[in-house]
């Protein structure tokens, strides 16, 4: 039977010649991930069930990124619980303050996930690694605990939606605009339980950072995972970085898809998702009447080097609008350092922005940029639900780093092609 890319990876990890959509399988895991919010719950479950060791100390990845450097005593206790667990079980890939980054930027950067992998993470944006040609999906803490104990997870083999990409993005349009546009087309449950499989000649024009951003938000369409084919760009990214040998899976020519969507990249324009759902998309050029109080550029969606470069291109030598708070958060220490070397951070500070060490903080309304009553923020993060970044009457507008930086200069939603 012909299979999609996701189905082939799942079949291989379940030691089966083939799998069919709807089939329940038990798959071997190449990686299990948790963060400082989800890991403490997993530790409780792991210990309550009486397990005394992790299945493979090199395949458990624990990253403190949501509330670090710790925002309060309770958050510090959670980090300590993770730290103690990693020490006790000699977890090799434990990332504490100083080495950490936002997990979904960090793991690909450090070569801890690679093409052909089957990975679960107790964080919904674990679907990011599909950009490398891996199957990766978000789960809860109990699945993480079971994964750490056994090295396996159960999955229902998903049906697939094929997204055929044509053409090439225009200047100032990025991967974020691609995924926001797609979510606007199919809705926040348009890919529920399914895999989003990207293909077509348009793929080659997308950078790794674009692909990581696109797969990152597959969950915002309800998808189980997003995945890109492995091409020469993927291989050059993995070369010298991947800590394990990779394997390339390709969808069969005659694989079956429940739906096919064609996107002409050259027609896309800077796109913004208005409150309170990512599917509520509008063109940035139509948002000039929406005045804002804050801009956030960062997160697992858009805290990578190209995102910082986009912000730099717009902000260098300029000043952010008076009265606006602009928070820029490079996603890993390596990205932070590179921003320093390239002069981005100096330019950001000169423009009137604040630059933070890596954290998920403001994206989920944790800390470092909480919104007051009725305040509005243009943010490169991934969710704009009620109360997501602070007060329940505050509003989050999701956009690309170009659009967010352009909006930082004007104080209202702004098409980056206009500044």
């Amino acid at each position, binding site marked *: 039977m012909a299979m999609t890319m996701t189905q082939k990876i799942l079949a291989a990890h379940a030691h089966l010649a083939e799998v069919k959509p709807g089939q329940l399988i038990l798959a071997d895991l190449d990686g299990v991930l948790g963060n400082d919010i989800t890991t403490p719950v997993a530790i409780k479950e792991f210990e309550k*069930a009486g397990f005394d060791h992790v299945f493979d100390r090199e395949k458990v990845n624990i990253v403190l990124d949501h509330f670090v450097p710790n925002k309060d005593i309770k958050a510090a206790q959670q980090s300590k619980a993770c730290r103690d667990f990693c020490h006790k079980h000699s977890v090799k890939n434990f990332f504490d303050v100083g080495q950490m980054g936002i997990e979904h930027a960090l793991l690909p950067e450090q070569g801890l996930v690679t093409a052909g992998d089957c990975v679960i993470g107790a964080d919904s944006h674990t679907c990011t690694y599909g950009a490398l040609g891996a199957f990766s999906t978000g789960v809860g803490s109990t*699945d993480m605990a*079971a994964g750490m104990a056994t090295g396996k997870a*159960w999955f229902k083999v998903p049906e697939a939606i094929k997204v055929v990409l044509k053409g090439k993005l225009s200047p100032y349009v990025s991967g974020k605009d691609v995924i926001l546009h797609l979510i606007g087309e199919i809705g926040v449950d348009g890919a529920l339980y399914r895999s989003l499989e990207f293909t077509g000649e348009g793929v080659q024009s997308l950078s790794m950072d674009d692909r990581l951003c696109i797969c990152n938000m597959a969950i915002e369409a309800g998808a189980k995972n997003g995945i890109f084919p492995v091409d020469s760009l993927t291989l050059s990214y993995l070369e010298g970085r991947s800590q394990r040998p990779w394997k390339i899976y390709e969808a069969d020519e005659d694989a079956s898809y429940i739906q096919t969507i064609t996107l002409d990249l050259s027609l896309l324009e800077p796109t913004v998702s208005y409150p309170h759902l990512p599917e509520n998309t509008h063109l940035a050029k139509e948002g000039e009447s929406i005045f804002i109080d804050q801009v956030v550029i960062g997160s697992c969606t858009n805290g990578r080097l190209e995102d910082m470069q986009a912000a730099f291109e717009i902000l260098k030598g300029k000043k952010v609008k008076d009265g606006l708070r602009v928070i820029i958060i490079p996603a890993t220490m390596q990205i932070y350092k590179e921003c320093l070397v390239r002069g981005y951070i100096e330019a950001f500070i000169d423009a009137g922005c604040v630059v933070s060490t890596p954290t998920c903080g403001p994206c989920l309304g944790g800390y470092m940029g909480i919104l007051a009553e009725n305040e509005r923020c243009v943010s490169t993060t991934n*969710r704009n639900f*009620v*109360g*997501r970044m602070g007060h329940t009457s505050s509003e989050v507008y999701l956009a690309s780093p170009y659009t967010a930086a352009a909006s930082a200069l004007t104080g209202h939603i702004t098409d980056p092609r206009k500044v």
Partner: protein
Amino acid sequence: MENVRGRVFKYPDNVDTDVIIPARYLNTPDAKELAVHCMEDIDRNFVSQVCAGDVMVGGWNFGCGSSREHAPLAIKTCGIGVVIAKSFARIFYRNAINIGLPILESEEAAEKIQPGDIVYVDFQTGLITDETLGCSWQAEPFPEFIQNIIDKGGLMASLKE
């Protein structure tokens, strides 16, 4: 699993895990502390009114967003005996099964049931009865594999076997 009879709290489509339990409270894994803030960003009265065995009803894509298991945990710890929705977001669906929060999918039931109705759920048959309206609906049955996890009391308990 014990059958449930309770009063309905009804919510719209796309109830996300940020409103079920806002991230500002995720600095603790303690279920009781989390339960105090359950649903507060969309329903300030929920926690003070909910009683053990009550029923939560949602629309499409219930539990979308974050993977936080704190969300089903908070709902369960509040006393909710079952969540009925038109559909569930996939991570929430897994999490609910893994931690033993009963969930049922029924488009019709989730459409017709009204806030405040008294609803009875028979888990053996999957029959949902709205005693206020005098109507019954059959929920979608779980695959056998998942029913097994539920019967054993959650994922970790089933692993121990």
